[in-house]
């Protein structure tokens, strides 16, 4: 039996507790804001022609006459049981609607991250090992340009080029009924749209940390020992150079979830983004709320996973010698 070190577990526990607090805080903030701004939901739901008695009766039945903090507790109870209520429009449980579309959003964001890393890291390595060369210059200009282009512009451009000009249809929808190959085909454009900006970002980040790492004494030592350059770069330097890139991953998922809204709307894919968007357009607030909570929860979990991965890769963090708090976006 292996002995469990106290360090990593304590670190893990403290991260989990923090994440839980943050999620609870986020839910509270949204709930309180809703109560403050939107006024009495009974009046809103029943419309302007409802009598005062009807509003009072409805409010009593729904527990809306309770003070805000009691309603908040009630609401948390429902959230923990996974009870987000029933959608007024479709008559289905809102939780089912969220769980049904979540895999689409996860597939989209994860494939975008994977693509960004698969292309961005080698690109950054190449630029770092050929500093100020033609490739490095082109990569620098390209990555700044790509970062500056908002993902929804990229999405529309891709749609324009591939569906209108080249007619490589079909690109819209998720292809739920068409089998795995069809689903993958329809994932290509939205994934690329999300990944393109990140490729530039990851490449820039990898380049700068790779340049820094290559100046370290242990690299010089490895060179003096006559190790092959490719081994030095890809076996020793890359591991350390990847750390800052890993750190942006968790925060990056947050931005990706936001950008995914546009990709989903533009490519008419089902997903949490489409759910929130149609919820806003149809003033279906409970659905919006549930969708936003799902994303906040996913974002918190992604951050947690990043912290864990970071601590796993870099023992200094486990020992509490360094923090992971990079500049948050």
């Amino acid at each position, binding site marked *: 039996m292996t002995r469990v070190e106290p360090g990593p577990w304590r670190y893990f526990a403290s991260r989990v507790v923090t994440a839980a607090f*943050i*999620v609870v*805080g*986020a839910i*509270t*903030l*949204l709930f309180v*804001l*809703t109560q403050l*701004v*939107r006024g009495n939901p009974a009046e809103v739901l029943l419309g302007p022609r409802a009598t005062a008695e009807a509003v009072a009766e409805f409010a009593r039945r729904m527990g809306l006459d309770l003070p805000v903090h009691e309603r908040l507790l009630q609401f948390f109870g429902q959230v923990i049981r996974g009870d987000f209520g029933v959608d007024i429009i479709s008559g289905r449980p809102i939780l089912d609607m969220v769980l049904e579309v979540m895999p689409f959003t996860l597939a989209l964001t994860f494939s975008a991250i994977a693509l960004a890393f698969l292309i961005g890291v080698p690109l950054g390595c190449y630029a770092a090992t050929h500093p100020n060369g033609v490739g490095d210059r082109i990569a620098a200009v390209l990555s*700044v*340009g790509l*970062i*500056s*282009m*908002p993902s*929804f*512009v990229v999405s*529309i*451009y891709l*749609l*324009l080029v591939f569906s*209108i*000009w080249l007619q490589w249809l079909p690109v819209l929808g998720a292809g739920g009924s068409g089998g795995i190959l069809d689903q993958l085909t329809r994932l290509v454009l939205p994934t690329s749209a999300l990944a393109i900006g990140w490729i530039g*970002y990851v490449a*820039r*980040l990898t380049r*700068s940390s790779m340049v820094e790492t290559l100046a370290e004494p242990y690299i010089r030592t490895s060179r003096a020992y006559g190790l092959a350059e490719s081994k030095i770069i890809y076996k020793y330097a890359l591991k350390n150079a990847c750390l800052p890139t890993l750190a*942006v991953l968790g925060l990056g998922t*947050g*931005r*990706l*979830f*936001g*950008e995914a*809204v*546009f990709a989903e*709307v*533009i490519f008419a894919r089902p997903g949490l983004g489409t759910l*929130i*968007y149609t*919820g*806003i*357009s149809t003033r279906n*607030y409970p659905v*919006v*709320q549930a969708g*936003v909570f799902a*994303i*906040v929860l996913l*974002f*918190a979990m992604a951050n947690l996973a990043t912290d864990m991965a970071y601590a796993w890769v870099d023992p200094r963090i486990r020992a509490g010698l360094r923090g992971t708090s*990079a*500049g*948050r*976006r």
Partner: protein
Amino acid sequence: MSTIFSHIWRSSTGRFGLILAVAIIGSAAFAPWLAGDPNRIDVFNRFAGPSWQHWMGTDHLGRDLFSRILHGARIAMEVAAAVTAIALSLGTVLGVAAGYGPRQVERPILILFDILYSFPNLIFALALVAILGPGLDNVVIIVAMTVMPHFGRIARAQVLRLKHAPFLEAERVLGASTARIVFRHVIPNIAGPLIVVAGMEVPAVITIEAGLSFLGLGARPPLASWGTLLHDGYTYLSQSGWPVFFAGMMLTTATLAFTLFGEALRDAIDPRLRMDP
């Protein structure tokens, strides 16, 4: 001031960004004189490509795209200015209160910042749209709330660095009031980094406004915002790609210009603020 300017001018990317940014602000300011009426409808000339008469072609109602894009720059710049002003002042107040105030003040503010950070930017903006309702005025408030914590965090960090500086201790010993110390000494001393953050946030502000307007939640037709131009262009994408192409290019150029300018400004004022590439 002139040293900051010359610093920016010396870096090639900074110069490029500055020229582009000035061109965009200029075309926003002089849009009514540079181009015709953005709302003049000409149904016989719908979806026209670029020509001498319409430099960027026309949209689905035959309106001149060049004029609409210049007027869109107006909205983008107005929103950017309003949002930055609100976020900067609110963030500074909260950040200074957290940094200089007692723990009872600091804790709730830091918790608020942490909670705001737990929302992805755009998702928080969408949640606020759902609560406050769509419209350009609300978008200004919403985007300001979304980017405010960045200002707050920087303000607090700067105040903490400054709090026990000898010259502030001296003021305190001389019996200066807290208000005097904060307004006469602390705020002027943290202004530089806050201006840098303001510059760096402009691209994000422009993008979020355009994004919300694209979703039909910000500027409403017939107002010509880059977001609504993209929305209209997307709706009629199969008829003409020009509206989408030019509006997207303009948005990208503006983001690029202010990113490069912001980075040069940061390097000129306070390179330690380099957050991430």
